[in-house]
Each structure stands twice: as structure tokens, then as C-alpha cells.
């Protein structure tokens, strides 16, 4: 008999759905981007990755969580290096090194927490931390664990591996990495542990608010300076994850609902943008935005879906990204952190700026030389792009119904 009591609640359901949707999109893209002789291996690795992420979501014990974080990480290294190019190995190597540092920090923290609480179940550790709230060694263990998760989530200043890993990986791997892997291993884990184990103490809140805000601003500024399509999206990802962490840092029911909603939205629209990047790279043979231009006239579906994804990322109504950002900013403001809320609003303008620049350089304006015969990407890329776009629009339009039915119950986990 398998003795295991999974931690399944409303947040878990949101994550299962996001993992399934993003993995499906990656699978679609792989049919076009991965050579036929490597497709079987790719699908097996993708399945191992899904096992790892679902295990992370199901875990209600810190050691179980660590093991499934490792399953996800090992499958990710291999997937990044899948095409065995120099850049792919470099990206995978950076991920391996920083992930190993994160694992070492998490393991060290587990050892201390085991000695403090006598077990590693979420509730055992929570009780032990509550009863020894002034213990310096327990505070150190929590801080070390959280830093390990910041590395896994690619938050500033621990983001060094992320742009290389995302941009050097094959297209379907970029979709799944940017769409869900870092969200499941770094961001969801952080949300789960802060809510269920560590609690919202003032130092934890301050650390989350600071790291979240720095990630929003640094990610957006770095995205502005990129000319590689996928690298720009990678930095944008760092910035958007910052919003989730900012919401978590506010620590109220509304903020948690907003953070989880943005986590889901980000998984969807970032996957869509990486699917668009796959379409552009496959059809034009380049990701350099300086060499592209005006291709929306030749690739109308890719152009339209990328506009929807960009508007949602920038927080333009009535798309899903607008609502989740609005909830986060309102919740952070209501919690009394006015300065952080103001920075988050101003950084939205930066998001708008780098995405407008991307749209103008890639999809609009005069058609770049050599692309007169350009055609739309194949159905394996168009179908997931359309599905992801419909979800983004549907979630935005259905928000008034979703708010009371799904979102506030998610936040009520507090």
C-alpha cells in the first residue's frame, strides 16, 4: 500500500491545469521543431519532466518536494542540451551549476529543519517554526531555503542562468521551461511553502517584496536592451515573475489570489510568446530582431496571437494579464505597501515599451529584405498558439465570473 497523502487544494488544481496546457503546447511544437528520429526521446523526457512537476505540486513533505525538484531539474538539463549544440551545452551547464547551488542550499536547510522539528512534513515544520520563532538557526534555515527557491525561480539577483537556458534550448523546450518549469519549481514552491510552512513573518514579507520589486524593474530594463527575440522574452519572464512574488509578499487573501492568477496567466501568455518565437525562428531562420520586420503581413496568425500575448503581458484590458496585475497592485496598495505598488505600476510602462519595440521590430513596419516569399508556420505551431490565445482572451472576458467562483477560493487557503 502506498502511504502518501498528497497536498491537493485549489492552488494545486491551478498548477495541474497550467502544467497540462503548457506541456500540450510544447508537445505540439515538438512535432514541427524536433527531428523525427529524436521525437520519441523528447516525448519521454517531457513525460519525466511532467512527473517531476506534478510531484512538486503533490508534495506535502519538504524532502518529497526536494526529490521532485531534482527530477524536474535533471530532466530540464537534458532537454536544454537536447540538440547538443555549443550554446545548448553552455545554457544547460549554467543551469546545472546554479541548480546545484540551489539544491545544496535547500538540502542544508532541510537538515537543520529536520533537527529543529523532528520531521519534514509541512505541518510538523510549521508547528516547530511557530514554537521556536526566535531561534536564529530556524530563521537561517528558512532564509537559506527561500534563497534556493529564488535561484530555481530565476529571480534577480539569482537569474544568471535563465536567459541562456531559455534562449539556447530547442523551441519546444523553451516553451515548457519559460511557461511552467521555473514557475513550478521556483515560484509555486515558494507560494506553497510561504503559505503552508514558513508563514508571513515580517522578514519573509520584506524579502519577498524587495526581491519581487527588484525583479520587476531589472527584468524589464534588461528586456529593453535585447535584440534576440528569445532573450528578450526571458528577461520579460523574470519581470513578470517579480509581480507574482510581489503579490505573495503582500500576504493578504486578495494578493494570494492575484499572485496565483498571474502565475497561471503568465504560464499561458509566456508559452504563447515562445510558441510565436518558435514560429518566427522556424520560418525566417533567425531570432535577431534587427534582421526582422513587417512579417505580420506574411504570418498573420503568428502576428495576431503575439499581439494578444503582448497586450496581456503588458496588462492591457480586458485581457487576463490586466486583471491579475490589477489584483496584485490593488492588494499590495491595500496592504499598505504604497511605494511597491507605485513601482509595479511604473514598471508596467516599461513592459509596454519593450513589447511595443519588439512588435515594431519583428511584426510591423516595412517587410525586411529577403522575406518576400515568407509563409505562415505549420499547423503544429499555429494550433497551440490559437488555443493559448483563446485561453488568454477567455480568461480576460470571463473574469467577473472567475473572480468569485475560482480566484477568491484560491486566496482563501490562507
Amino acid at each position: 500500500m502506498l502511504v502518501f497523502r498528497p497536498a491537493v487544494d485549489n492552488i494545486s488544481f491551478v498548477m495541474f491545469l497550467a502544467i497540462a496546457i503548457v506541456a500540450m503546447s510544447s508537445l505540439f511544437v515538438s512535432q514541427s521543431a524536433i527531428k523525427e528520429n529524436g521525437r520519441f526521446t523528447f516525448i519521454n523526457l517531457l513525460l519525466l519532466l511532467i512527473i517531476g512537476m506534478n510531484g512538486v505540486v503533490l508534495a506535502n513533505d519538504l524532502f518529497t518536494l526536494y526529490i521532485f525538484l531534482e527530477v524536474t531539474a535533471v530532466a530540464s538539463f537534458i532537454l536544454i542540451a537536447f540538440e547538443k549544440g555549443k550554446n545548448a551545452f553552455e545554457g544547460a551547464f549554467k543551469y546545472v551549476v546554479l541548480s546545484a547551488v540551489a539544491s545544496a542550499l535547500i538540502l542544508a536547510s532541510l537538515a537543520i529543519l529536520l533537527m529543529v522539528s523532528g520531521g519534514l512534513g509541512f505541518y510538523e515544520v510549521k508547528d516547530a517554526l511557530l514554537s521556536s520563532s526566535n531561534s536564529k538557526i530556524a530563521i537561517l534555515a528558512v532564509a537559506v531555503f527561500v534563497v534556493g527557491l529564488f535561484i530555481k525561480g530565476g529571480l534577480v539577483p539569482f537569474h544568471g542562468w535563465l536567459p541562456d537556458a531559455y534562449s539556447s534550448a530547442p523551441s519546444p523546450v523553451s516553451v515548457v521551461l519559460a511557461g511552467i518549469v521555473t514557475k513550478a519549481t521556483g515560484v509555486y514552491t515558494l507560494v506553497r511553502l510561504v503559505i503552508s510552512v514558513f508563514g508571513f513573518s515580517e522578514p519573509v514579507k520584506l524579502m519577498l517584496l524587495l526581491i519581487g520589486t527588484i525583479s520587476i524593474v531589472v527584468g524589464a530594463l534588461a528586456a529593453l536592451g535585447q535584440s534576440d527575440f528569445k532573450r528578450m522574452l526571458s528577461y520579460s519572464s523574470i519581470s513578470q515573475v517579480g509581480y507574482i512574488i510581489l503579490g505573495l509578499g503582500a500576504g493578504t487573501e486578495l494578493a494570494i489570489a492575484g499572485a496565483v492568477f498571474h502565475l497561471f496567466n503568465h504560464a499561458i501568455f509566456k508559452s504563447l510568446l515562445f510558441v510565436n518565437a518558435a514560429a518566427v525562428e522556424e520560418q525566417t531562420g533567425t531570432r535577431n530582431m534587427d534582421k526582422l520586420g513587417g512579417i505580420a503581413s506574411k504570418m498573420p496568425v503568428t502576428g495576431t496571437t503575439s499581439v494578444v500575448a503582448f497586450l496581456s503581458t503588458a496588462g492591457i484590458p480586458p485581457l487576463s494579464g490586466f486583471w491579475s496585475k490589477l489584483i496584485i497592485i490593488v492588494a499590495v496598495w491595500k496592504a499598505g505597501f504604497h511605494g511597491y505598488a507605485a513601482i509595479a505600476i511604473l514598471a508596467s510602462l516599461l513592459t509596454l515599451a519593450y513589447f511595443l519595440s519588439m512588435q515594431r521590430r519583428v511584426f510591423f513596419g516595412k517587410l525586411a529584405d529577403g522575406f518576400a516569399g515568407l509563409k505562415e508556420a505549420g499547423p503544429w505551431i499555429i494550433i497551440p498558439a490559437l488555443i493559448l490565445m483563446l485561453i488568454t482572451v477567455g480568461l480576460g472576458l470571463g473574469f467577473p465570473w472567475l473572480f468569485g467562483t475560482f480566484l477568491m477560493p484560491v486566496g482563501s487557503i490562507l
Partner: protein
Amino acid sequence: MTTIDLLLLFLMMSAAMWTVMTPGLLYSAIGLALTSAILSVIMFQLNAPLAAVFELSVCAGLITVVFVAAISLTKPMSKQQEAQHAKTRLKRYLALPVIVVVLGWMLWSAPLNFDFLPRGIASGDEVRQVLWNTRRFDLIGQIIVILTGVFGIVVLFKNRGKEEAEK
């Protein structure tokens, strides 16, 4: 802490540093196996025989086999490359022993209050009970980690020799 414990800790740290600093991958894998073997002895010293046996069989045994299998699938460096690599690697990690000593001293003298719960030593039956009954889901996860790692080695190195020959 007895003299034997101190000596074992010193040997383990030395083996671990050699693992990181040595330029050859094979030597590094052997260094890691040695580190695990000494850690197993420390675990025996701490009355944790089952943990020691696991450390010895999985880390010093199985993991080393996987490493050596992966290394055997790679192309060795030329003598010149090896000499250059050894030089740069030594230079890069020159400060490591100093950092380890300083960190060790800091942790030793830090006023940390280790107010831990008193631990009893589990009997063999209890360990088996915990491992097979309460931590079975973890075991499944660990099996998947190892499977994924081995699968990764096969995927990344399987046709490497052929591909290099074609180039």
C-alpha cells in the same frame, strides 16, 4: 568529538576539495567516491549503519559507475590541452582551501544555539519501516531521478562518437 572523528572529517574535506580541484574527470569521479566512502565511515561512527550502507552502495558505488560510464563515452583531451586545462583549473580554485578553512572556523566559533530535539538512534527495523512504509513515495521519486539521469547520459552521449567521426 574524538581524534578519529576529527581525522575522518579532515580526510573527507581533503577528498572533497581534491574532487573539485583535480583536472581529470576520472580522478574527480574517484575523488567523489572516496569522499562518499569516508562519509560512510563517519556514519558508522555515528551509529547509523543503514545510512552508511546506502551512502556506500548508492553514492560511492552506483553513482561512480554512472559517472565512469559517462566519462568513457567522451573524447579524451590531448596532452597539450590537458596541461593547459590543469593550469587554469588550479588557478581558478587556488583560494578554495583557504575559503573552506575560514568558513569552517567561522561556523565552529559562531554563537549559534543548536537547540535541537533530542534524537534517539533508530533500530534497523524502524529504519526499514520508515523507508518502505512512510517514505515510499520518496523512493519512487529517487528511482525516477536515477532513471532520468541514466536516460540523459544515453540521450546526450549515445551517438557522440559517431557524430564526431562524421565531422
